[in-house]
């Protein structure tokens, strides 16, 4: 037994030495590190950001390696509980070219049990990419059987529009300051054709809702009210306005219904809600 342990230790030390030597050789010869080496560097606090910067332009080969790294890092306490892992950041920096592969992986893990952290990390990456990822987020929300993942996917769409008002808290004007950059038309154009699917999700989740459960129908209703027209918008408002107090959960962020209520009735009004009977009087 003792001899076995000694052997394992010697072999381990030798392998470690080979790896370090190989890296030194790479560095000395000016050879660029391999994609595998860069992705492995995501796991080290002091090299994680450098790795995300290098992977930004590394091409499709990096995406599959990063997708394999996501479940390893996702949910790892305590640093990565926010679902912002180095792998997620690297995928977000690659941007639009990474959407199909993320979407494909998400389609698989959204249906598996025990993959909630991975699914939420992938959803985070899609949301960070921008309006181009809206179809993939709606697809993920439709496909998953897990309410938290659906909630997360829909909230990422809500967050794409910069927040201009904060309900119930007196933040200074600098808190909601943003330099002029209007992505509203892009969000509208991409999301509008998908709103019937969001409405389906709202109806499905409304039927299944139980006290204390997460409420993915809340961001769904917000999206319908904010971006829809006619009957679809009316359905969103109908759900959002009269019963907003009944299902508010403090763990949900952002709070779309509160924002909606403020946008309809508060001083930071950004669109007119008065055409719907469900909107309460000022």
């Amino acid at each position: 037994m003792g001899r076995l342990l000694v052997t394992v230790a010697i072999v381990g030390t030798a392998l470690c030495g080979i790896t370090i030597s190989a890296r030194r050789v790479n560095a000395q010869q000016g050879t660029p590190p391999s994609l595998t080496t860069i992705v492995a560097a995501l796991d080290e606090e002091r090299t994680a950001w450098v790795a995300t910067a290098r992977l930004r332009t590394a091409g499709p080969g990096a995406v599959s390696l990063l997708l394999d790294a996501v479940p390893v890092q996702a949910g790892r306490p305590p640093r990565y509980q926010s679902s912002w892992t180095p792998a997620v950041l690297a995928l977000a920096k690659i941007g639009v070219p990474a959407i199909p592969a993320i979407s494909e992986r998400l389609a698989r893990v959204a249906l598996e049990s025990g993959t909630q952290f991975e699914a939420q990390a992938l959803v985070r990456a899609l949301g960070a990419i921008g309006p181009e990822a809206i179809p993939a987020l709606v697809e993920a929300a439709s496909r998953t059987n897990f309410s938290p993942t659906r909630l997360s996917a829909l909230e990422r769409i809500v967050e794409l529009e910069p927040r201009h008002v904060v309900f119930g808290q007196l933040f200074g004007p600098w808190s909601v300051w943003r330099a002029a950059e209007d992505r509203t038309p892009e969000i509208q154009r991409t999301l509008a054709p998908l709103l019937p699917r969001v409405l389906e999700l709202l109806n499905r989740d409304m039927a299944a809702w139980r006290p204390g459960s997460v409420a993915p129908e809340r961001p769904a209703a917000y999206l319908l009210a904010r971006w829809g027209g006619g009957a679809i918008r009316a359905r969103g408002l109908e759900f959002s306005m009269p019963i907003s107090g009944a299902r508010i959960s403090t763990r949900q962020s952002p709070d779309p219904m509160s924002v909606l209520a403020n946008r309809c009735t508060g001083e930071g009004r950004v669109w007119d809600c008065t055409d719907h009977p469900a909107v309460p009087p000022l």
Partner: protein
Amino acid sequence: MGLHRPPSGPAVVTLALKFAQAGVGGARELLAKCLVDSDIQVRLAGAVALSAFDRPAAIRQLATELSNSERAYRDRASDYLLMLGDARGIPSLIERLDDPFESIARFACHDLRIYTQQPRPCDPSLPADQRARNSSGWREWWRTNAQTFRVMSKEAELDGAAWPSVAPVSFRPAETID
């Protein structure tokens, strides 16, 4: 430091911004007047506030402040220009890498990295000779790339969102990948 740090300003600018956000008539014109105020603080903060409605006018104003006689104001104008996606703020950040105060050099390193996405070394805790080599490397990079460089605003915003889970500048040395 980066996009995740909200700006602030003198009370008069803050008030004008609040009015402008609420759609009060004449508030934007008031912000525009801030740009010609005698107080540099009002001009700088006014430009940032105005950028929510008129980005080109804000950038024009901040660019003129780059020739201010005081370095602190030039640096602030540079920071705000980068925040608005204008590359004329980069040389000031490179200059600050050599600052004797480590915290200033560290912020400069952070901002340089997020706005350029260049994984070049700029660790402020290294010995002076290594720091000098690193900042010289950044100067050389800027000489080569200044004409074609565009500020990586989207990536900088992502870095801001991911901080502190992923920190652009580590407090531990040797941030290179062999």
